[in-house]
């Protein structure tokens, strides 16, 4: 009888969906997530295309369903250190990193966060604002338990403070907490480790990191989110004023042999969405999208783009800008219009805007190589998890019994990730269900 427990690595929407489906199918699921909360990238989005659903509103019930499921063992702030064995019988070692907070006592009240004097750049908000050294990654975090970032905590750095301990009425602070090793025995493994945004400062011509009002797509999402660093006000970084004209540059670091040769798949759509959101917040704002091929291939996507054009006046310009310069904080986009009407003059143009959003390439998550190495699966030449037979077994990795779903195996949007997650669950079910001749009705 094969082991009917399953390990899911990665707690984004794909990992969450796979876990829920497997648990509902009767399997014991161990969901491992590197950060203190499940939710992943979807928690960082404001809205999702093409429905413009509030992202966290549709994600939160799934997070809670997953965490509350009797057959899901949530292991957040944990990492995989070793995997041995084969399909049906994997032996996994996990490292539970110390939160320095007793999960059984912490009520998530937040008093400790109020008292903590130490502010550090907030990774959830793409470092656009600060969080405390003891923190909850975002307001709807699951599990709702605090974590102490030991690398920035005054107690761990200098042996002082301990104000959180003083503030905590539940006595949940545990500075002496140690990391723990957890050993699991599972029959199958599902990888759902997601993606990271590409560091576009490499593209010096676009001035990211030098020109203040040049930001990335994910940063835009955080700015326009009600729970983000500016409470949903789209503010130009330079003067905190709302922009009047904004430009989206597509394929930054994507479809480029110098950086990432592939297409990141979701950027044409997320730029369209962001232009719509900007238009909703500021009806007089003008948006321009500089694209190469406008990849709106999914269900409802073409209609969404039409809506952006007709209802929100978004203008699409087919050009890959060569350079962005700045004058007094106003970025100027230098480009060449590539589509010509007969008789039109071809020339280099410039557009002065208030804010530039670089739709950055999305690359395999930084933990990928390590995880793939530990688990023993192959990566393809750009670093995504290799799927040997995409046509018949689109979720099967190079190792039997190990499956991969979502962005970690190929750039894709939320519906496709969710589909692959459920699909991976079906593959696991097939693998781990003992053969049965049939059942009486």
């Amino acid at each position, binding site marked *: 009888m094969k082991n009917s427990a399953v390990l899911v690595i990665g707690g984004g929407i794909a990992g969450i969906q796979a876990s829920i489906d497997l648990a509902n199918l009767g399997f014991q699921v161990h969901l491992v997530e590197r950060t203190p909360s499940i939710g992943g990238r979807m928690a960082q989005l404001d809205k999702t295309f093409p429905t413009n*659903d509030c992202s966290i509103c549709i994600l939160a019930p799934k997070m809670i369903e997953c965490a509350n499921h009797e057959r899901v063992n949530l292991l957040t702030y944990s990492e995989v250190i070793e995997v041995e064995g084969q399909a049906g019988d994997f032996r996994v070692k996990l490292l539970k990193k110390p939160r320095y907070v007793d999960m059984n006592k912490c009520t998530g009240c937040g008093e400790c966060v109020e008292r903590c004097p130490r502010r550090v750049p907030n990774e959830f908000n793409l470092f656009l604002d600060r969080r405390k050294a003891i923190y909850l990654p975002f307001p709807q975090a699951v599990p709702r338990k605090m974590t102490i970032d030991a690398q920035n905590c005054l107690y761990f750095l200098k042996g002082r403070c301990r104000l959180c301990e003083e503030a905590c009425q539940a006595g949940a602070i545990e500075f002496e907490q140690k990391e723990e090793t957890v050993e699991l025995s599972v029959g199958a493994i599902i990888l759902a480790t997601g993606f990271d945004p590409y560091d576009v400062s490499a593209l010096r011509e676009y001035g990211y990191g030098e020109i203040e009002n040049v930001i990335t797509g994910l940063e835009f999402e955080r700015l326009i989110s009600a729970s983000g660093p500016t409470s949903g006000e789209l503010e130009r970084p330079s003067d905190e004023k709302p922009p009047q004209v904004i430009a989206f540059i597509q394929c930054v670091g994507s479809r480029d042999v110098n950086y990432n040769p592939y297409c990141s798949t979701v950027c044409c759509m997320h730029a369209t969405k962001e232009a719509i959101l900007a238009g909703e917040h500021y009806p007089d704002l003008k948006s321009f999208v500089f694209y190469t091929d406008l990849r709106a291939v999914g269900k409802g996507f073409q209609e969404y783009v039409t809506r952006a054009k007709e209802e929100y006046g978004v203008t699409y310009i087919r050009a890959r800008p060569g350079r962005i310069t700045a004058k007094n904080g106003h970025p100027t986009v230098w480009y060449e219009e590539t589509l010509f009407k007969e008789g039109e003059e071809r020339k280099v143009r410039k557009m002065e805007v208030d804010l530039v959003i670089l739709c950055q390439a999305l690359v395999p998550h930084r933990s990928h190589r390590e995880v793939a190495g530990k688990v023993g699966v192959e990566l393809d030449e750009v670093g995504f998890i290799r799927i040997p037979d995409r046509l018949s077994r689109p979720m099967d990795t190079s190792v039997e019994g190990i499956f991969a779903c979502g962005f970690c195996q190929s750039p894709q949007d939320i519906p496709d990730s969710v589909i692959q997650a459920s699909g991976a669950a079906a593959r696991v079910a097939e693998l781990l269900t003992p053969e049965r001749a049939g059942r009486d009705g």
Partner: protein
Amino acid sequence: MASDDQPTILVFACNWCSYAGADLAGVSRLEMPPHCQVVRVMCSARVRPEFVIAALSRGLDGVVVLGCHPGDCHYSEGNYYTRRRALLLKGLLEYVGIESERFQLRWISASEGAKFARTITEITDAIKALGPNGWRQPPPEG
């Protein structure tokens, strides 16, 4: 709460189509006048004529029933019954002296957020034009 230009309008919306359409209007942040209040029912056919009469006779300025487009009712036939009842009800209202425009039936699908917004705006304007409901009866004792 009600005054000459602040009507109070009751809207029955069916769960599968029009309530979802109203949700979509919300998600799309479509502004509309604030005088309509939505009550959810599973099917527009749940709305019995007595509700409409009771609402209007207690002084509400308008009652709107929203359902799925004919042919698309989640329960196959519900909205056909709604349509028939609406016809009879309009006649009855006129007969007892309530402007039949105070009762409206419209079809809104789950994807018609914009239509919901337009419908609400249009009906609100029409009911404002009729003035406040002159027919007010106290509720029965007990």
